[in-house]
């Protein structure tokens, strides 16, 4: 019986993450359009796109790794989702969130992009490989302030588990974004790179790399990548909410919190042009790193 609840809960979580991620993507397109003084597509445009992509023929493959790539990505997204506490008390989404911790999550998140990178590599398109190298380089950039923020939290609360951090916030009554502000700033700056909106959209770069890693993937491949990307966006947002904003008791609060934090990279991105790769890396090793160090000092003193 417990197993059944877990499985049903897992399926519910995946569906929730998919729907929320996709809708957010559509809303972002709408917001971008409004900022550009356009009308923009309806908020459900991403669902239509995904459905259309799923309906397209997928007639070719460049080898089994190309097909495995999107599957890797999807597996990584779903498994990572399983280890994120969606709601504070579990509720309808029990999952496995007591079995892992932050460092584990950091490494699990890399699983998908690496598989995806292998899939992109096998297509033989030089643009794919260039996109992948840019993505990996950028990742090295933003992981440093991000890890600094996480380590600061770990020091401050003497725990590495996400549920532990959420409990600590519930007990003290303040969110971590107020009790450790520097860590929050560093994490948010790192988040700009994590979501790959401008100016950090150097991986896809449609006009420059012909969409980079996905350039040889259409149809179902692209559908898988798009949906796992949406799930992954939800995962990252929920993680931020969990560790910095005290988690959420119910779905409405969760949506409110995730959406408000999602707006940071989106709004920053809309008004920004694109960086070159080394500029992007150096950006993260400038102010974000400074705030990360401040966070570490703050955490080790208090």
């Amino acid at each position, binding site marked *: 019986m417990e197993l059944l609840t877990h499985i049903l809960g897992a399926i519910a979580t995946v569906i929730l993450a998919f729907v929320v991620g996709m809708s957010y993507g559509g809303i972002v397109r709408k917001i971008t359009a409004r900022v550009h003084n356009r009308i923009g597509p309806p908020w459900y445009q991403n669902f239509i796109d995904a459905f259309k992509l799923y309906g397209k023929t*997928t007639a070719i493959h460049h080898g089994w790794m190309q097909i495995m790539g999107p599957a890797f990505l999807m*597996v990584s997204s779903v498994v990572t989702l*399983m280890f994120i506490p969606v709601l504070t008390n579990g509720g309808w989404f029990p999952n496995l969130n007591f079995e892992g911790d932050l460092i584990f999550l950091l490494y699990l998140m890399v699983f998908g992009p690496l598989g995806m990178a*292998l899939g992109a*590599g096998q297509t*033989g398109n030089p643009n794919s490989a260039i996109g992948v*190298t840019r993505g990996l380089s950028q*990742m090295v950039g933003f992981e440093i302030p991000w890890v600094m923020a996480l380590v600061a939290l770990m020091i401050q609360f003497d725990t590495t588990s996400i549920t532990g951090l959420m409990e600590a916030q519930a007990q003290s009554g303040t969110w971590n974004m107020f009790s450790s502000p520097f860590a929050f700033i560093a994490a948010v700056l790192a988040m700009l790179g994590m979501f790959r909106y401008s100016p950090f959209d150097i991986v896809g770069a449609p006009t420059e790399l012909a969409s980079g890693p996905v350039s040889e993937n259409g149809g179902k491949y692209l559908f898988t990548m798009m949906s796992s990307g949406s799930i992954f966006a939800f995962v990252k947002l929920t993680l931020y909410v969990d560790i910095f904003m005290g988690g959420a008791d119910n779905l409405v609060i969760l949506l409110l919190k995730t959406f408000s934090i999602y707006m940071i990279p989106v709004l920053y991105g809309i008004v920004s042009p694109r960086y070159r*790769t080394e500029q992007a*890396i150096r950006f993260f090793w400038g102010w974000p790193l400074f705030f990360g160090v401040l966070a570490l000092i703050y955490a080790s003193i208090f």
Partner: protein
Amino acid sequence: MEMIYLIFIIFLGGAVATYLLGKINGVLRDITFLATLIVPAVLFYTQVSIGQTVDFSMSGMNLQWGITDFGYIFAYIVLGLGVLAGIYAVAAMKGKENLGFFYSNYILSIMAMMGILFSRDLVSFFIFWEIMTWSSYLMVVFSGKDVQKVGIKYFIFSAVGAYAMLMAIVTTYSLTGSMMIDSLVTAYPGFDFSMQLLIPILLLIGFGVKSAMMPLHVWASGSYSHAPMAYTAVFSGALSKMGIYGMIIVIVSLVSQIPEGHWFREVIAWLGGITAVGGTLWAVAQDDAKKLLAYSSVAQLGYIIVGVGVGTPLAMLAALFMAVMHGLFKGTLFMAVGAIEKQTGTTNFTEVTGLIRKMPLTFLASLMSIIALAGIPPLGGFIGKWMLYESLVGSDHYMLVIVVFFSSTAAFLYCYKFLFGFFLGQEEPEWAHVKEAPAMMVVPMIIMAIGSFILGVFPGLILNPIDAGLQELGYASTQGRYWEMSMLFNEWGDKVVLQPILYTIIAVFVFFFVFVVAKNFKKTRYVSTKDISSSGEIPKAHENLTFSRGFFQPFLRAVEPLMKHQIDPLYTGFGRGMEAIFDFVRRIYTGNGQTYALYAIIFAVLLLIFKNQLFGL
């Protein structure tokens, strides 16, 4: 007869026999070689019990051999990797010249490493250490290329390490009057402070050379890439761990006993961290797979040194676990490079591409090892990294954890470069003839890859002996406190449960594999890698569009300031300076009789002038 003697007699006799048979019959030689590796391994695991010792005296010196719990962990690496790499070597080296010499050196290396683990006294320890150095030196120069540059470098550094170690041993003897390691440990707290500092530093120079610690690492990239790959698997996987073995004994048994030991360990940990970052960045910059893996070995040994330096129980568990894992995955990767070298004749990423469909099993083994190397769950590398981070955070090394994390993230770059460079990218007609490597080469790789998978899910299998070994060194038992069979705990009691992770991954993976991948694979048809969207242009068969030159150029540009300072030119400058001094000294001996006569006269005049001062007349 004592089983320990028998093992060494088999090793020695096998080494000689292989060398002699190498001149007569190839098949007999191969069989003898394998038997010499496998029989002692079997004997060791079945007949030798932990704590059993044999004593004998040689010219007035009391020697003692026996295996401890702590040595047993390393024996796993040495014998396991030794046997598997030996099987691989038979296939990999087929058709090369001078094989008897290669095999007997190989056996001598394994024997020397076992000897180091068995030695309970410093004399036999030093003798085996020298045998190990010599046999590995002969392997480095085996190909006969660049002996001057690479071989001599390795030799000089090894010699410096050996002299430092010899000095420490002699000092110990003069202070304690005994050659036993145990008596050194017991007498150590009674030494005066300068000796307390001198002995560990001298010993650490010796061990640091072998484990490629920061200023002593410059030999590693050249030597690892120059030795035959079948041997490099052992060289990097097992031989470098001997340095770690010694280092742990020195740091834990000696340095920890003095109050200043804390700072000493901090320095070692930071040296390890810097080694990790430097090794990783240089690995990213390499275009040759052997060099890349060599630098990556340096970086991985850096993590281990960090764990040893930090020295909390969790950090030690992490370091030793990573030592075992590094033997597994780096051994596999070197073997894979060897297989590719054998099949294609080159190991340069800019030359060979698109082997995935030609060598799928090698790719699979490399993929699993790379995942382990990168530390991605559910493979074993993750366990070591996790424990290392947790121990660093738990023991207040906040900056060090960032440094290690930076190095570990940057490692993804070279991981991808390795896989992409060899296996992915455009398939070239130039490599159309390439076939999968022979079964004898593939099977050891696959076994080791599966091994790293099993250790990733059941780390308790190897953490159990490690725990016993740590108790031997005086740590409290960590039984159930930090780990269980498939569970990890940190200092605060937070845990990672590995089995649900595995189940989830497998379940989701199977779901997608069955419903998406397998279905799609059947329905779609294969097109060559020339059929890509390149602006409507159709690449010709000989046009190589693979992106392999300047692979991480932007990244390297961004980290340029970090890579500007190298230690190598310093050593070269030092060498040049010494050469100049020697050259000047040499000029005194002109070979001209009149000059010598002049020297004699000047000497006599000087004597006359200073005779009062000199002789007090």
